[in-house]
């Protein structure tokens, strides 16, 4: 915690950060309505799938998993934006993180909620998902603790619990302040959420300590969560899945896509809430560098993963590798390489080109590229199994596309609502930061 030389009355900043909480524009309503419409359509598609059967999706033998699981991995990856980044930055005490952390942590929680839904959506009998939990019945049935899917269940619930608390803790002083300055139902909600925060030094002290501890724990959990997600695949003996590199590969990919998501979220917040003074070039520059670093790391992993398969020349692996690199999946593969490596490398690697706008463009590319990466991990392997006679091809249906699209709108919707209820920048953490940063730049 940076020292405060003297208490600052940051009324101006507070007013600006609180404005979106107190005033709702017509444009906001319109956007929310639009997003809600798509989300509802996705819910309808899901309802249709529940009623008719999972067969309304395009999955088939042998491609038993497809874009539902792609979305699952993708969103869990996005969720690393947050917590992981904010935790790393908090632990390394990087001062510039302060206006960024809340935005990142919120992404985590919402992305996890959405990602966590997909294993349920993709179930053949989704209404029986609770069978994955160990609860006693006289039927003496029990979940299988050795299944990676059960690891997922525990990992994601732990991560969701942890990241919610991690988001909530630094929110307490802000809601306490909001409770003091608002009236009506908002005041009651904020007061309830402030769990009796008084602003005493004991509280500040405990909060600081808890945040440090949580940052450490959440870091360990976040790494494990995406490793476990990777293990869903690499614990299997399917060609190109059974790879020891998958754990770190997925974690790196998750951080990569997480930073991209964060950059996009920040760019949008900066523009719509006019927070140019708080989210400065400096922040974007730093995050862009991080993104570039992750892009290089991702490229390294991708090369390592594919080169070994190619060199090993094992026929079953080569069938999948070939399908990806020069077979039916080649367009996606090369699009992925361009999106994840070429574009970020050019746009962010060349200093002159590195602006907020290019960083945002690169981030969008990275998100597309990372989605494709997951698609390319899941679908080709399943399409080209060990026995050539079982090969098959997959194409998604409107149900899968609707549900997938709805998750993006749900994310945006949750984010918008969150930004409407809580300050998206942690005011107490950063009030002095404004001055520090402006003196630096």
């Amino acid at each position, binding site marked *: 915690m940076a020292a405060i030389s003297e208490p600052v009355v940051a009324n101006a900043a507070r007013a600006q950060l609180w404005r979106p909480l107190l005033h709702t524009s017509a444009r906001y309503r319109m956007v929310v309505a639009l997003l809600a419409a798509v989300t509802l359509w996705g819910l309808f598609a899901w309802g249709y799938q529940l009623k008719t059967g999972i067969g309304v999706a395009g999955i088939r033998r042998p491609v038993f998993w497809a874009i539902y699981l792609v979305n699952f991995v993708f969103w869990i990856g996005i969720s690393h934006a947050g917590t992981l980044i904010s935790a790393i930055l908090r632990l390394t005490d990087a001062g510039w993180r302060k206006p960024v952390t809340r935005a990142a942590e919120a992404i985590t929680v919402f992305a996890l909620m959405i990602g966590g839904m997909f294993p349920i959506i993709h179930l053949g009998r989704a*209404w029986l998902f609770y069978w994955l939990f160990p609860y006693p019945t006289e039927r003496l049935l029990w979940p299988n603790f050795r299944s990676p899917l059960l690891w997922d269940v525990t990992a994601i619930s732990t991560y969701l619990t942890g990241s919610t608390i991690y988001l909530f803790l630094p929110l307490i002083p802000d809601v306490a302040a909001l409770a003091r300055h608002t009236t009506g139902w908002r005041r009651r909600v904020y007061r309830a959420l402030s769990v009796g925060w008084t602003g005493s030094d004991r509280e500040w002290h405990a909060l600081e300590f808890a945040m440090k501890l949580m940052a450490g724990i959440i870091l360990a959990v976040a790494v494990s969560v995406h490793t476990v997600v990777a293990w869903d695949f690499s614990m299997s003996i399917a060609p190109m899945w059974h790879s020891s590199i998958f754990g770190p590969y997925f974690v790196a990919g998750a951080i990569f896509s997480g930073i991209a998501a964060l950059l996009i979220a920040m760019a949008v917040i900066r523009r719509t809430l006019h927070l140019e003074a708080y989210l400065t070039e400096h922040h974007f520059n730093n995050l862009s560098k991080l993104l570039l670093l992750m892009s290089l790391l991702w490229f390294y992993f991708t090369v390592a993963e594919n080169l070994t398969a190619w060199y090993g020349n094992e026929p079953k692996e080569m069938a999948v590798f070939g399908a990806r690199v020069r077979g039916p999946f080649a367009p996606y593969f090369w699009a992925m390489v361009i999106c994840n490596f070429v574009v970020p490398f050019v746009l962010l690697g060349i200093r002159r080109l590195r602006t907020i706008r290019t960083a945002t463009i690169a981030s969008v590319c990275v998100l597309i590229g990372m989605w494709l990466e997951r698609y390319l991990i899941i679908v080709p392997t399943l399409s080209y199994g060990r026995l050539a006679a079982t090969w098959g091809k997959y194409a998604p249906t409107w149900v899968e596309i609707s549900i997938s699209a709805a998750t993006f709108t749900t994310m945006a919707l949750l984010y918008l609502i969150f930004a409407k209820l809580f300050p998206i920048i942690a005011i107490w953490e950063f009030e002095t930061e404004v001055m520090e940063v402006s003196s630096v730049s």
Partner: protein
Amino acid sequence: MFRCLAGLLIVCAAGAMCAEQPVAFPHDKHIKLGLACIDCHIGADLRDRATIPSVQKCMLCHAKLLRNDAEVKKVIGYADKGIEIPWVRVYGFSTDAHVKFRHEPHYRAGIACATCHGDVAKMSVAEPVVKHDMGTCLTCHRQRNGPQDCAACHY
């Protein structure tokens, strides 16, 4: 989930309906007269399934006995029309349970009818007194060291 609920409803409905059997058949009276369960429910000892006797079987005795009893008259009515009595099921597994239940191994193991069907000998109307669900089955299988392999019943 929907099915479980539906199954539950069926069980409840069956319970509710047991009072409205087409003929008020008094099990207790027949047992007292010396009949055994498997005299009528043939197959319960040596076959997969126990059967419900045909109305012809009832008529073996009631062609002569108690012809004036109100309930017996109903039986005779069915027999004369040549149709079977539409009995309402009291016990049974729902098809969704995918249980391949066989009576015979249970008979071989010496399980009394009353273990699963209650003491019908004391009932004037058969009622579902023993819950036929996986808990009941498994509890007994565990106590008596019966097979607890899922595939013993579900396939």
